[in-house]
Structures are given as C-alpha cells and as structure tokens.
C-alpha cells in the first residue's frame, strides 16, 4: 500500500537517514511516499495540521514528540498505537523509557520515537587556545577564565548565532550543566518557581551573563556561520548540539586533534533525550491502517534503528543495538546514555507556549547587555511559575 509520510528532514544527511526507513518499509511490500517539507516548527507544522484537520491526512507524520501533538490526540485525530506497542513490547526495548512516556496520553501510546538528539555540547578550536598560550579548557570555568585573554587577541571567545533558538539552547545547556540535571527537571518538569528564583540558580544566570559577554562580538545569524567562526579561528568555541560536528567534518577537522567536544560543558555529562517521533493520523481506509502498523514496527526494528541513526548522526532509541561505526564524540554520547545520565527535553516537559516565553526571555537577555542576570532570573521564575 502507498503510505504518504511527511517530515521535515530535508538536508543531505537527514534525507539519507529517512531513506533507510523508506527502504525498510518498502521491503515489507508497501510503498513509502515521501512528503518532505523543510523548516520544522513554523513551516511544516501548520501544513501537517491543516492536512489532518482538512480531512485529507497523510499516512504518517513526523512530529517532535512531547506535548505538541497532545491536542491532536485529544481531538481524536491520531491513531492509538497501544496494541502495536504491546505486541512489540516497546516498554522494554525503548531506552531510555522516558521517551515512550512522552508518547503516552492516558495510558495509551500514540507515537513512535525514532531517535535521540543531544544538545549539550561545547565545541572548541584547539589551535586558537594553543596559539594564545592557553591550555585547551576542559570545562566551562576554565573556558570562561580564558575568555579575556582571547578577547584581547581579537578573538571572539564564544560564537553564537542570532537565531532565538540558539540562545535558548545555550541557556538550557548552561542550566543543566551548571545546576545539574535534578534542578533542570524540577524547574521544567515540576515548574518549581522557587528553585528557579533561588541562590543556587543565580550562578547559572551569572554564567549566562558571562556567555553573553563572551559572545558580544559574534555577528552571525546561522548556527553554522557560528561554527564556521570556530573552524576558521575567528572564535574559540560554541555551544551547540551534536549536529555541529558535521561542519567540522566537512572542513576536514579531526576530533581531539583540531577540535575538542565537551558534553555537558565538561561539568555534568548529561544528554537530553529530545528527538523525533512519528504519529499516525486516523484514516478510514483499512489498507492504510494496516500499512501504518507496518511502518510503526519497521521504525523500531533494530536494523532500521541502526541504519537510520548512523546516517542521521543521532542516537538510537533502543538500548540493545550496536553502533560500532560511531565516531569519537558520538561514542562519548553513547557512553553517557549507557550510564543513564539522561534528562527529558523541554518539549516533553513544558508546553510550547511556555517554552516560547522562555525563548523570548533569553533572546532578549542575550541581546540586551543592560538586562542584568537578576532581572532575567526573576522573570524566568515568574514564567516558570505560570507555566503549564
């Protein structure tokens, strides 16, 4: 059966990864009809929602798992996958299990998580430090301490793109790394406003202020432009997700030699279990329903998981697969995952609406030097207090 699958994986690596799913699915005798639309949130989502509400749904669609799809599920537009999940024993295979939680509503399972993306990385250009007579830092504090010297040398200590999500990402990384995973979970998950406003958190905000200072000469928009600054030595480092590694590879840089990656800023080595998931809209056609089930199974099959994640550069959602081909930094990630140092992504914990408010706050904070760390903290605390 032809099954239309929409997603926003359009770049080279992503597309290659999707191709693995498609291959595996086609092997079951069905046909994967690709409906790729680039540009996640803003662009693709209204299209997908319109298709679903317009009464002309696709067979399956990518969605950030988390709370985004809740309403679609509540509106009864999404197919309940519980029986398939039980049959495939997903509760056991999926690791960390929290991934499945975010697909669950009222005890029923509605989506298939397919990968884990880690964001908590600091990327450093070794040569820049050496040239300036500095040791390559091993954690955030050393890095921050080296900043003034770098600035004197005309080097931007921290490269940061201007897009809002990049600043938010930086803050979240600082929060998890410096305040620790528990604090993170409390604040985002339990909406603990008191903690958010506490002394303990103040140091995170101070660090954010430092980061703001370190990045004040960074005049680029895209994250990859920022990465290019690091590669070319215009900047010393960047806080970015694991996808930044691709840029280093394209520039023929070697991990450990030319650049260093520090998960969790070298302080708390944790990984956020954010990632992607697939949902299956309800349709009348039994043949399609059948094919949807097939696809759900295929996506979680160990073979497909390995093939997919190797291409995608992300981590598999199954703990029981072997990723021998992974590179250095990726292996570091796998280790952390194996140790169980995982946290849930904010998507899973907080509504998109509240996250946007947090987003806005940090965008403003990083761009407005006159906004003090204290101000930011108190605003943050009030957002957390009102969040849902």
């Amino acid at each position, binding site marked *: 059966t032809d099954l239309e699958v929409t997603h926003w994986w359009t770049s080279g690596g992503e597309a290659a990864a999707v191709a693995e799913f498609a291959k595996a699915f086609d092997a079951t005798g069905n046909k994967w009809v690709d409906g790729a639309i680039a540009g996640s949130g803003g662009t693709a989502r*209204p299209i997908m929602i319109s298709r679903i509400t317009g009464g002309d749904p696709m067979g399956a669609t990518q969605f950030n798992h988390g709370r985004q799809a809740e309403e679609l599920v509540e509106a009864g537009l999404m197919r309940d996958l519980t029986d398939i999940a039980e049959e495939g024993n997903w509760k056991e295979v999926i690791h960390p299990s929290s991934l499945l939680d975010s697909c669950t509503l009222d005890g029923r399972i509605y989506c298939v998580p397919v990968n884990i993306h880690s964001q908590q990385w600091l990327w450093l250009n070794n040569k820049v430090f050496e040239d300036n007579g500095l040791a390559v830092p091993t954690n955030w504090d050393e890095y921050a301490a080296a900043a003034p010297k770098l600035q004197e040398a005309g080097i931007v200590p921290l490269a940061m793109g*201007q897009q*809002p999500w990049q600043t938010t990402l930086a803050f979240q990384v600082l929060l998890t790394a410096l305040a620790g995973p528990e604090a993170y979970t409390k604040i985002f998950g339990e909406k603990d406003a008191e903690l958010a406003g506490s002394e303990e958190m103040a140091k995170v905000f101070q660090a954010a202020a430092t980061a703001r200072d370190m990045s004040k000469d960074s005049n680029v928009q895209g994250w990859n432009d920022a990465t290019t600054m690091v590669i070319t030595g215009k900047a010393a480092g960047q806080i970015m997700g694991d996808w930044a590694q691709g840029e280093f590879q394209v520039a023929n840089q070697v991990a450990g030699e030319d650049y260093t990656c520090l998960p969790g800023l070298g302080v708390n080595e944790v990984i956020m279990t954010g990632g992607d998931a697939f949902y299956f809209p309800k349709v009348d056609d039994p043949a399609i329903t059948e094919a949807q089930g097939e696809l759900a199974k295929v996506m979680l099959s160990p073979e497909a998981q390995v093939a997919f994640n190797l291409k995608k550069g992300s981590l598999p959602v199954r703990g029981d697969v072997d990723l021998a081909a992974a590179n250095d930094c990726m292996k570091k990630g796998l280790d952390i995952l194996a140790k169980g140092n995982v946290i849930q992504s904010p998507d899973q914990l907080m509504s998109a609406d509240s996250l946007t408010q947090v987003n806005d706050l940090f965008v403003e904070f990083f761009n407005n030097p006159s906004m003090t760390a204290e101000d930011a903290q108190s605003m943050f605390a009030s957002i957390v207090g009102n969040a849902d």
Partner: protein
Amino acid sequence: MAAATRPARWHRNISAKVAAVPMIITAVVVFIGGTAWTVLYSFTNSKLLPREKFVGLAQYDRLWSSSKWLISIENLAIYGAFSLIFSLLIGFMLAALLDQKIRFEDTFRTILLYPFALSFIVTGLAWQWILNPDFGIQHVVRSLGWESFNFDPLYNPEIVIYGILIAGLWQGTGLIMCLMLAGLRGIDEDIWKAAKIDGIPMWKTYLFIVIPMMRGIFITAIVLIASGIIKVYDLVVAQTGGGPGISSEVPAKYVYDAMFLSQNLGQGFAASTMMLLTVVIIVVPWAYLEFGGKRK
C-alpha cells in the same frame, strides 16, 4: 401608459451583479466569516487546534503585557511610515524617470523590478551578508582604508528596523514603480503641453497636476504597500529572525510565532484581531469617504 415611477431594478445591471458575485462571496463568506471566526476564537485559549474554551480577555491581557508585542507594534509603526513614504517617493520618481522616453526602458524596468521576483528566503541571506559588518559593505569600505566606517544596521538593535527597510524597499519599489508607470501612461499628452506653456517646472507639473490626476493609482499603491507592511513577515525572518534579540519583531511575525511556534492559536488570534481592529479603524472611514455614496 407605464408607471411613472422607477421600476424595480434588481434585474437592471444584471451582468454587473453577476460579475460581482465572486467579490460578494469573498467579502462576505471569506473575509467577514473568517474575521468573525478569528475574533471569536481570540477569546478562547485554543492551543494547537481551535477549541471553544472561552477565557474572556485573558489573551488580550497577555498580549498587551508582552514586551515582544509592544516592540512589534513600535517597529511596525516605524517601518510602516518609512516604507510607505519611501516606496511612494522612490517608486514614483523611478517611474517618472522611465517615462522620459529613455532608451533601454525595458532593461531598466526589468532591473528595478527583478527583486520582486526573487523570494526573500534567500535574498534575505544575501542582504544579511551585504550588511554584515565582518564581510559586507562595512568590511569592504574599511579595507579600502576608511577604518572608522560603521555600517552594521542588522546587528545594532537601535537601527535594525532601518536595515530591514533597506531590503524591503529594494524588493518592493519596483512594483510600485510599475504601477506608477502605468498611471503615467494614462495621462493625456495635451496636459503636459498645457503645463509647458504655463511655464510650470517639471517637478511642479508632477506634484500639482499629474499626481492629483493619478489619485486612483496612488490609492491603489498605498493600499498595496500598507497591506504589505501589515503582513511583513518573511523579510524579517530571512534577515534577522526578529533579532538582535527581539528588536526587529513585527506583529505578523508575532501572530505567526504565536500560532505555529508557541502553538497558542488564541494568542495569535488576539494579536491579529488587534491588527485588524487598527486596520478597520483606519480603513473604514477612509473607504467610506473614498467610495461612499456621495459620487454618482
């Protein structure tokens, strides 16, 4: 003898009425219907999907306490005022230049118009580069020896909106120019002659005779520009994404972000209701004067 009174006349002008059916349907069903729907749902706390969970004015409270929204409005006002003035000014001046029976008119016109054909998703990037202080114009000028030259509109929160304006005008004036050119081409040659005899300088002829004669075209242009301003979105997204910080946010982006990024439809609807309200307050009295019954 037939009645002396005016007969029932619904069937007079029947073709015109038939021809106006699409307009009537669009106006009533789509625009009025859609607007009513939007206003209605702005009183709900709809998130991803429109739902009838009414929360009164809560969305509006939040809207007006959001600094992002306030900045958006301010930016829109600045951008709108400048964009309107400069689009009309530049558009008209270019059209007037092209109307001087010049050679290569087609080439010039196409050059001035081409930006309109290119989607802003990427041209925004080109502008972003050109205005980037590290490798754009500032860089070039500085490397020519003028070290203190400063030109970084997109990276300075104070003036970022003007940086966006530079690209906005680049993209939009060509069309206005074409519109004006079409208007100029509709003006009787003898009027020019009369003005020449009257010894009226060129600029005055344009200002006091030709422009007033082109009233209709100007109104069209103003509506075109103004509606474009209200909807300005991709220009900002492509160049600054609303940054630095939120210093270049605009209302349409606020609406879009609220609806599709934050997934708070209610908030998006409230913001667009406010935008519409402003438009209605400005447009309706004007439209009444302009199109209202007074003229035959």
